[in-house]
């Protein structure tokens, strides 16, 4: 088991290096010179040249990459051109926010999606199945920004129960933090819940029609036990994979939702950075999220082993 974890962690290193090279190379393909964009209306050619020198933009891309990766190894992710702040500070500011939002969204998604999937599989063909299907389709097909604005108008403008936007850290004020994040978390969780429900339903249907379930029933086991202990456990494998993937996507930033609720997470950071061609920030955030993504996949693999002993080495 430990060996497996160690091996997977070793695999992480080349993957991150390849990802970092790709992101470095790809963003150089973006048209537009960072120094010119940074100058905006204040286009003084001499100053633009100074900035290009200062950030080594005048040097060949491989040289720039070597400088950057050297910094990364020593824990220095570079400096934001636009904000003159270390990228590591920005990442440290945003990561907890994104983590909190993603975790809340995931909890909401699991609490809605998994039970709904089980119910619709068990009650296949009944009214329950249709109702759950309609709700999940609604969840998948509702655009996040639209649902977000709708929620703001209902809960903030009309009812005045929740703040329309902004973010408060749970360490500062847990109650206020919950109030500011519940709407965006619901919006994000809502769309994932639909996907989770569909997958849980499919996996459950397959499990319920398998031989061991028939055997379990033949043994005279209580139906609840058949469903929860026998069928669900086996049906969870694809759901865990999907959950980890969705969680990873959430970590790379829920761009639109963060924009609407003004949640200062990775999504807003990276979008602003791309539009401003603030390369160091884009690289830093992508590096951190891709590493986290790979770690999550590892956790998902470990999760399979936990629910399915047959996979144990």
């Amino acid at each position: 088991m430990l060996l497996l974890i160690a091996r997977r962690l070793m695999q992480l290193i080349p993957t991150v290096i390849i990802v970092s090279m790709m992101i470095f190379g790809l963003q150089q393909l973006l048209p537009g010179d960072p120094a010119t964009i940074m100058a905006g209306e204040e286009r003084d050619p001499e100053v633009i040249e100074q900035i290009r020198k200062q950030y080594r933009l005048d040097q060949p891309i491989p040289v720039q990459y070597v400088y950057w990766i050297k910094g990364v190894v020593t824990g220095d992710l570079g400096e934001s051109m636009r904000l003159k702040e270390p990228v590591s500070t920005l990442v440290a500011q945003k990561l907890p926010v994104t983590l909190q939002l993603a975790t809340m969204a995931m909890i909401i998604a699991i609490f809605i999606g998994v039970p709904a999937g089980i119910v619709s599989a068990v009650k296949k063909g009944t009214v329950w199945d249709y109702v759950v299907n309609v709700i999940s389709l609604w969840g998948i097909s509702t655009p996040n920004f639209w649902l977000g604005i709708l929620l703001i108008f209902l809960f903030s403008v009309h009812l005045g129960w929740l703040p329309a936007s902004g973010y408060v850290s749970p360490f500062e004020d847990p109650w206020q933090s919950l109030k500011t994040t519940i709407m965006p978390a619901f919006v994000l969780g809502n769309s994932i819940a639909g996907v989770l429900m569909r997958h849980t339903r499919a996996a459950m249907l397959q499990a319920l029609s398998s031989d061991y379930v028939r055997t379990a029933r033949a043994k005279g086991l209580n139906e609840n036990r058949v469903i929860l202990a026998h069928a669900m456990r086996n049906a969870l494998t694809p759901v865990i994979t999907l959950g980890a993937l969705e969680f990873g996507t959430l970590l790379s930033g829920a761009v639109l939702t963060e924009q609407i609720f003004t949640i200062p997470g990775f999504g807003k950071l990276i979008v602003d950075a791309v539009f401003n061609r603030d390369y160091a920030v884009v690289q830093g955030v992508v590096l951190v999220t891709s590493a986290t993504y790979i770690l999550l996949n590892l956790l998902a693999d470990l999760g399979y082993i936990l629910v399915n002993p047959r996979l144990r080495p």
Partner: protein
Amino acid sequence: MKKSFRYGLAALLAAPLFAGSAMAQSSIRIGLAEDPDVLDPTLARTYVGRIVFASICDKLFDIDEKLNVVPQLALSHETSADGKTVTIKLRPGVKFHDGEPLDAAAVKFSLDRHRTMNGSFRRSELSQVDSVDVVDPTTIRINLKSPFSPLIAQLTDRAGMMVSPKAAQEAGDRFGQKPVCAGPYKFVERVQQDRIVVEKFADYWDKANVHIDRITYVPITDSTVRLANLKSGQLDLIERALATDIKDIRATRGLKLATASELGYQGITINTGKGDAAKGPLGSDARVRQAFEAAIDREALVQVVFNGEFKPGNQWVNPENSFYQKSVPVPKRDIAKAKKLLADAGVKTPVTVDFMVPNNPETRQVAEVVQAMTAEAGFDVKIRVTEFATSLKEAEAGNFQAYMLAWSGRTDPDGNIQTFAYTGAPNNYSAYSNKDVDAALDEGRTKNAMPERMAAYKRAAEQLAKDVPIVYLYHRLVIIAHRDRIEGYRQMPDGLVRVVGLKIKG
């Protein structure tokens, strides 16, 4: 389980306490349309950043509602007869937020920092300054390379913002992380893309007029959400509300509206001299450009896209500006004239035009209206929607025939035209070049007397109306909305939110 419940309960009980302590202090929240860039007056370049600077960094001079220059950290200024030295008297006894004195030496330090610091965006604004002398502790003398009448206007913006020499020397180019200036509010904290908090500066020179203890700036990009926050009371004031929301704001109880015509403009830059794109009929024949302009109905355009709230315009300053040339009025739409001009030019219709438009919903709509209007005269405008950063690159390379471009505007007219129309100037995307216009623009910035400047700009306006390197379309409205508990708000034409004099009712 029990323990966590107790913590939860404690948090619940504590929440109103926090709210209570916050209420003892008067505070307001201002919604910004974007997250500002670095808060260092020397290195900053965004419009939204200037809104925050308005509370933390005072300038040597300021403007009033009529665009007149009024004193702020300076008391007066005097230009020598040859126009080459400007002597500025400073307000005595002013202190920076760190308690350092704002004297002539500090002013010299700030101006020199603006002029020489690596990456300074103030360099070009102060490029005519040769040196700064300290005459006595409250007087400085600015020596110019050549007479430069926009200088004082430059000092009403970031070039006139003074920073504490001690703090600036200690922080270097990280000064923007904790700016120390001499404004009514001092910087407290900033969380990127979340908030900027400032609090009342006890030793401010005009502290009798500062009534609110704390201001939090919150960037909210989506204008619908920004307005929703204002309506729900989460925000007290928002900047850059949409023209299409004006009716709604007027109709909402508890909200007030403040507007002013902007200093800048929205226009279409035409490539007249860069690369192959300029060789088409539009770039090479002024008559075709005149026809293009004649086909546009500016009044209808602002009616359709902006509910008639914006002002049609045809020059680099708006028609209310004292530098507007009345001899070149906003032309009416004239399709017959446009068709005749095209016939005179002998071009084959339809004349195709590659029209590059930065990607945002409003400019896209404007482009579509222009496309429809000019089609009637014989143009086939092909709209190419392009991401903004990419569009700048394309414009620089000359890969466009027409380019929709907005300018946020400067206090002095020189800042709205010189960089666009002077031969080889940095923003001259049109690659326009005309000796008479160059001479007129030179005169406009070196002469000090208003009649002489007016005469020079008149010559430039008349020539530019013939050559049409830029088709000016309209001037946006600065639209600020605030809750009615805020009193004393006055809108200046630069669109910035001045916080001195603001009060909370009751």
